[in-house]
């Protein structure tokens, strides 16, 4: 059974404070298994450690302890093992304005991973780029292939970033706040694309976000992180509709909900009247 598993992941950072130094445990004993065709949402406020988990999975940070297993085997630190891991596990970053090189065309951004990971070369490159663009719905592909980042909207850029992540043949995507920089009207389009890839191509997606509503609608399972710990986990609907942990309730109460319009005003008025 193919899977991406993290087991008892811990990350500590040294914090210098003047002459003293202390240890900050950013991630404390996090374990979960990502399977093909499933989406896990990792939610929490800033500083809860969710991005540190993403960085460890994408090998941008080394865990202090704990393991990352791909298909049951530990991931190599360097060489072949690490290379193989990178074919399979790729990242989509938050800011599509910063993660694409403004000097290069879309084709360049996609050809590089195809070549580096040995997926295609020479005459096969152009058709492979086309296929990738079609998979992320940037059609007609030859028009988009020739564009540079500034000629595209944020949503289109993020689609290029997703295509780039798919280029090495990735089976698992780590998407760290992939839509938070985008305008609301195009967020759903990008999320729907991820959902389609997940379903039709059996992609495993780790969706990192602080937006509980999209976490609920676009994932099978939700993990709630607070100060490095996973404080609650379960099927999305259970976590959102029937939260057990106090912190999950705080998060839920803080999320805007259109149907509660005017409620905040009433609450504030009642508080002021009482004091």
């Amino acid at each position, binding site marked *: 059974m193919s899977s991406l598993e993290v087991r008892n992941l811990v990350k500590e950072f040294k914090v210098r404070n003047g002459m003293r130094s202390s240890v900050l445990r950013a991630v404390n004993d996090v374990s979960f298994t990502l399977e093909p065709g499933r989406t896990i949402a990792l939610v929490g406020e800033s500083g809860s450690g969710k991005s540190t988990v993403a960085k460890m999975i994408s090998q941008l940070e080394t865990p202090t302890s704990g393991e990352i297993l791909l298909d049951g085997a530990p991931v190599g630190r360097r060489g072949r093992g690490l290379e193989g891991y990178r074919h399979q596990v790729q990242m989509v970053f938050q800011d599509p304005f910063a993660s694409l090189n403004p000097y290069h065309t879309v084709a360049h951004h996609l050809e590089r991973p195809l070549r580096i990971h040995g997926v295609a070369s020479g005459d096969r490159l152009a058709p492979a780029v086309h296929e990738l663009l079609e998979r992320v719905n940037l059609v007609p592909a030859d028009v988009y292939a020739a564009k540079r980042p500034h000629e595209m909207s944020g*949503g289109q850029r993020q689609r290029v970033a997703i295509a780039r992540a798919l280029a090495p043949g990735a089976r698992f995507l780590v998407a760290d706040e992939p839509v938070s920089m985008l305008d609301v009207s195009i967020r759903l389009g990008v999320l729907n694309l991820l959902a389609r890839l997940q379903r039709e191509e059996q992609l495993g997606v780790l969706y990192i976000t602080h937006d509980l509503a999209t976490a609920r609608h676009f994932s099978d399972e939700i993990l709630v992180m607070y100060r490095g710990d996973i404080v609650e986990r379960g099927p999305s609907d259970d976590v959102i509709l029937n939260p057990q942990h106090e912190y999950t309730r705080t998060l839920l109460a803080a999320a*805007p909900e259109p149907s509660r319009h005017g409620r905040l005003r009433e609450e504030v008025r009642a508080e*002021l009247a009482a004091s």
Partner: protein
Amino acid sequence: MTATTTTGPLSSSTHDAHVAGLEPVLTARHVSIEYEVDPPVLAVEDVSLTLHRGEILGLAGESGCGKTTLAYGLNRLLKPPAILRSGEVTFHDANGTDIDVVGLTGDSLRAFRWDRVSMVFQGAMNSLNPVISVRKQLGDVLTTHRPQMGKQERAARSAELLELVGVDPSRLDSFAHELSGGMRQRVMIAMAMALNPQVMIMDEPTTALDVVVQRGILREIMRLRERFNFAVVFITHDLPLLLEISDRIAVMRAGQIVELDTSESIYARAQHPYTRQLLASFPSLTGDRGSFVRTGVSQDVAEEEAP
């Protein structure tokens, strides 16, 4: 707004009834703002808007729709190549006099800005000066606009302002990098409140903050509004948030206000297709799973606009 040549924003009879008894504090009539580039870009097109005393008016729309440009126009903050092509902006002072905002120059403009209408800027996380303390930055506002204030009075007022926004006055000697994002935002709000303005324009004041901190700050803004009765123009693309806090919402698209109504009406009976599209862009937290969910529809790029 009856004299508009183009069709005005959609709104309901509920809205007309809602505003009937209210006292205006800022009125914009037929405001058009252009960026003098080649070719010229008309960023705000014939916008008429009335802000009432003590109300929260939400200004919704996506990036590039002209909402920040309009706010800058109301506050006379436009910089070339942006230019106010036509229209008038009138401020109705609490003392009964009307101020023609567009006609202000030099000292009178300086006396008007921040004193009557202040602003919390977009990216307020990075709007504080990194090399001077909070005390100096708050003091700066007071020395400029209240020169008669003594040093001790200034210090007392600065401490009072921080307390108002829920920041410990011991933070007066802190620098921006020593404060969390939420605290920096609170200091920015304190600064905007320093002169007891009658209108505060807030441009995406909570967008960079996470939900829990965001909620705390919104609550603070609502509380201060109840106490000091200033009017707020709240600019954001986050429509669910606006629905929760605003009295009225103006939906802006491509430089024009396409719909203007009470929050209740926008939520329950949005008339403009674009407003409905915006409303449909947010999955409900606890409601039913909408049809858009995981459909993977092939038209998922169709609605995206060119940059």
